[in-house]
Each structure stands twice: as C-alpha cells, then as structure tokens.
C-alpha cells in the first residue's frame, strides 16, 4: 500500500489519541473511527487502513503467544501469565497454542521478542553447530 506523508501523520495522530492511561481504549478507538468516517477527509480509507495496521502492530506488542508441544496444566498457565504480566504490564493478553511439531519445551513470543526453549529449536541449533 502506497501511503503519503499526510496519511502517515494522521493515522499516527489517531494512534496517539487511542490511549487512556497508557493503555489502548476500545471506546476511544471506536469514536475516533466514527468521527473520521463522519468527516470524510481526503484519503480517509487509506488513513483508516494505516490506522488499523498501526493498531494491529500495537496489539501484537501486547499479546503473548505461548506455544507448547502438549497441553499446559492450569497451575503452570497461571504462573506463566503472572510472570509475563509482571514483565510486560497488566494489559498483556495471552494465547496458548498446542503445536506437536515442537516435540517438547515451550516457545513464547511477545511482540518481536521470542524465547525459544523447544526441543525442535535445540535440535536445529545442534545441527547448525555440528
């Protein structure tokens, strides 16, 4: 998608206005989108698309995806969530995924940070080293 400076500036301003006390506010987001649609400025569709993209990236920074080879017991699950929230803040959302291809261990991704302790990853590293 080709975007010009104006689109980028407006969508960034909208993103800045979407926070309340440092956290994304769904109510403000909805009202911002509604007011933009009502005013219909030039390139409004492109501005909304770029705003959506910025929001998606912002949400990804606040979402933890935890992949394991088998189901995690509830106790470990709650401990993990508490630890992650302590590190990344209370607005962090978590998602647990079972992926048997990992063979064992756990892979946690928050934004672009990844902690990989899976057997699959260890085997790959071993292969590279040998």
């Amino acid at each position, binding site marked *: 998608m080709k975007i010009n400076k104006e689109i980028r500036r407006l969508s960034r301003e909208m993103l800045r206005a979407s926070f309340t006390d440092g956290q994304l506010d769904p109510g403000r987001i909805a009202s911002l989108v509604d007011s933009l649609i009502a005013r219909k400025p030039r390139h409004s569709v492109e501005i909304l698309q770029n705003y959506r993209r*910025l929001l998606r990236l912002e949400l990804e920074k606040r979402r933890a995806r935890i992949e394991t080879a088998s189901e995690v017991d509830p106790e470990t699950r709650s401990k993990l969530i508490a630890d992650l929230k302590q590190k990344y803040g209370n607005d962090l959302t978590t998602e647990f995924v079972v992926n048997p291809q990992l063979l064992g261990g756990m892979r946690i991704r928050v934004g672009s940070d990844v*902690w*990989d302790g899976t057997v699959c990853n260890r085997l790959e590293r*071993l292969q590279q080293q040998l």
Partner: protein
Amino acid sequence: MSGILEEIETKIQGIKTSTAKSNVGVVRETGDGVARIEGLSDVMLNEMIEFPNGIFGLALNLEETEVGVILLGETTKVAEGDEVKTTGKLLQVPVGKALLGRVVNTIGEPLDGKGKIKTDSFYPLEKIAPGVIKRRSVSQPVQTGIMAIDAMIPIGRGQRELIIGDRATGKTTIAIDTIISQARLNKAGEKGELKDYRPLYCIYVAVGQKNSNVARTLAVLEKEGAMPYTTIISAPASDTATNQYLAPFAGAAMGEWFMDNGMDALIIYDDLSKHAVAYRQVSLVLRRPSGREAYPGDVFYLHSRLLERSARVAEEFGGGSVTALPIIETQAGDVSAYIPTNVISITDGQIYLETDLFYQGVRPAISVGLSVSRVGSAAQIKAIKQVAGKVKLDLAQFRELAAFAQFGSDLDAATKARLDRGQRIVELFKQKQYNPIPVEEQVAVMWAMQNGYIDPVPVDRVKEFQIKLQDYLETRKESLLASIRDKKQLDEELESQLKSALEEFKATWR
C-alpha cells in the same frame, strides 16, 4: 576419537541448559531482491537477518513500523509470512592469504571449484577508514610496468588513482598489466633479486561485468603466473544488485587484512560506474528518495567511504597499505557526469584514456594533459625522476606545437627539434598489453631518449629500436640493470656505464 565425543557432549550440554532469546519479524512484502519486514524491534543498521532455508539479508532501512532488508543469495525462496530473526552480526567475509589464487563471490564463497577456503579470519564489510593518527604519507611506488604511467603519472602505495575513459579504451588492460607487473616483482622479490622489496598482493573486484570478461581476465592472469598473488571477487552482471553493491566492500575488507598485518595490497574496482548503478537499483527498490540521475543522495558517501579505506599506515601500526585503482566508464568522453565527477574529486588523481588516441594507435591511450597524480611523485624512485622529470612538460609542449605546426610549413630549428623529440616520446610510450617493463629498463630507455640517442632513429623505427635496446640490455648488460635496480638512482658511474652501453648498442643497430 573420544575427544570428539566429549566435544559433542559439551555442545549438547550447552544447548540443553540455554533458552535462546531472539528478536523476530515477519516478511510482509518481497520482490526485486528486497523484503519488507514487520517486527524486528531490536534490529541494528547493517545487521544480518536470518531467513528460513539458510538465506541471509542485510537490514538497510530502519523505518517506524518496517525494516527494509536486501537479500543475499536465492531470493525466490523467501515468501510472505516467513518468520525471520536478527543475528547480532554484521556481514563479514573471509580474509587472509588463503584467498590468494582464488576466485570468490561477494561473500567470499569460492567460485573456482578449488574447494573450501581455509581461513579463521573474518572482516566486516563495512569498516571505518583509518584516521589521521594512523596514517602516513605515500612514499613507496607501485611499479605498474607501464612506462607512460611510471614516468608521468606515478602511483604510490596507499594512493587512490582513478582510471577513467570510454568503453574499450584499455582501462581494464592497465589494471591487469599492473597486476602482472606486481606478480613479476613479487616473484623476483621472493628469489631475493630485489633489495628491501615488499610484496604487493592484488585484489581484482569485477562488478557488473560479463562473465566472459571475468573468465578472460582470469585466463590472462593464470597464463602470466599472476594468480598466486591475486584474488578475484566476481559479482557479474547476472548476479543480484545486492551482491554487485557489496562486492567492492568485500574487496576492501580483504585488502584491509593485508594492511593490518603490515603488508601491502592493491585493489582494482572494475568498475564503479556499474557499482553506482547497482546501488541506485537497491535504493530505488528500497524506496529511498532519488536525486540527480536518479542516484540516491548518499552515492557520494558510498564511494568516498569505500575509497577512504585505502591508506598507508604508519610504521607503529604495521606500515601496511591499501592502494586503490577504481575504474570509471564515461559515456562519449563526458567526465562532467555525476558519478565521474564524484570519483574524480575523491581520488588522488586520474589516468584519463582517450578514444581518439586509442584509434590513432597510441596504446595505452593516456591523455597526458588530463591525467594527473596528486601524491604519486613523492613515491617515484630517484632514477625515474632524473630521466623523466621533464617528459610530461615536453609532451604537453609537443601536443601544443603539433597542433600549431599544422598551419605553417617553415619551422625554426628549436621548434622542429621539440616536435621530433615529442614524436619519439609518443612512440616510446606505446606499449603492448600484458607486457609490463621493469623499472630499470624504463630508466635506461628514457636515459637514452633524454641524452639524444633516439633522436637520429626514424620515428617509425623507434619502437623497434627500443625493443632491441631492451633485449640487448637484458642479455648483455644484466649487471648494469641490476645496479640501477639496487641503487635506484643514476650516479656518474652508472651514467658512464649507460653511455658506453648505448654507444656499443648503436654501433650494432641497423
């Protein structure tokens, strides 16, 4: 055997205990050798990015929400949605003497089928050039073996001398002749024939050239026995723009290893016009703003930071050097185009080759008026200075008078003598390709010219006279040549020996 098992066991232990933290991103867009990636919040500029299938990229554009990465290697295997990760490493190439005699690609992988390159040393492609404290002035010559250059446009070790001219004017030939000359000197140095000689290793970087041209150059260097002292880095026209853009930097890194280890290296960038074109392509695909002739704004910095890495370092830092011979191809002799003016202003002089001279049979077709060496004369050996001090002036005056004399028939004796001398100097400076002349023979021939021994020879036989004289000196007066080589200057004794040798030769010359 048990040692290997233990080593594997420790590696397994190391992997067992660690959880790898990495910074990842997702490919959102790919094409034309460039990928746009979301994520990678910790990426550094010029950091290597690892893609699936063992492909690597280089982060060049760090934007607010995206990273622009140029891909190295197979670009078709990268797909949208692929997860990539940072490596924390800068792009580096193997360096060291193991690369001599080899043909490699931009990232130092062998292309010659001679097996793996065995070296433990690696240098980053991008490195800051040595600063003012580390440097010293140029004082040692690079003997190109081309008489016109060694006499009039001398090149010193650590200098950057541009070779510029239209297509097919002999730019690459000058570079290859220089490599061959170095190989011959290096061989003589190894045999102990040259006093205090420091070998000069050569790196030939072919950017955007036809593969057939690179193969021909390789064949010539192999035939002349120059490959044991030479590395060829090939990023041909069929290679990606990324590889073409990075190849000169790989050459500079390989040359710097020699400099850092107290040795001398010569790098030929053939050619920087195509390098600028490759960089323009990369920049445009990365959506960087374009400027004059659609080149990006930092194309000057691209070449200045590359050529600034050529230096002669002080004795306390090893005393090594990197000499650069960048080549620029002009269009219809236009030196005022963007890239030629940039590189002319960066380098310490230029050898300008003219199409007209080339077709008149003056080869190498060096234009004496437009060629200059800003620092090289400090590096000339004294003997050459003694015999060639006025040659450039004589030739310049000859060209002026030759143009003037076309309109008049009656010339005074002094003008005629000057014209005759000029014609003979032009003949002397004609030289066959791949045939560098040793410096002592250059001195002897130019001494003969300076002292009027060539004046009676008809112009069309001057070349024949020169070749016979060189043969005579090589076969009959070897000790005289050796004395010139060792003393590096002409004293009264040597001059009298030269005089008697010339008299003897003249008596036999028909």
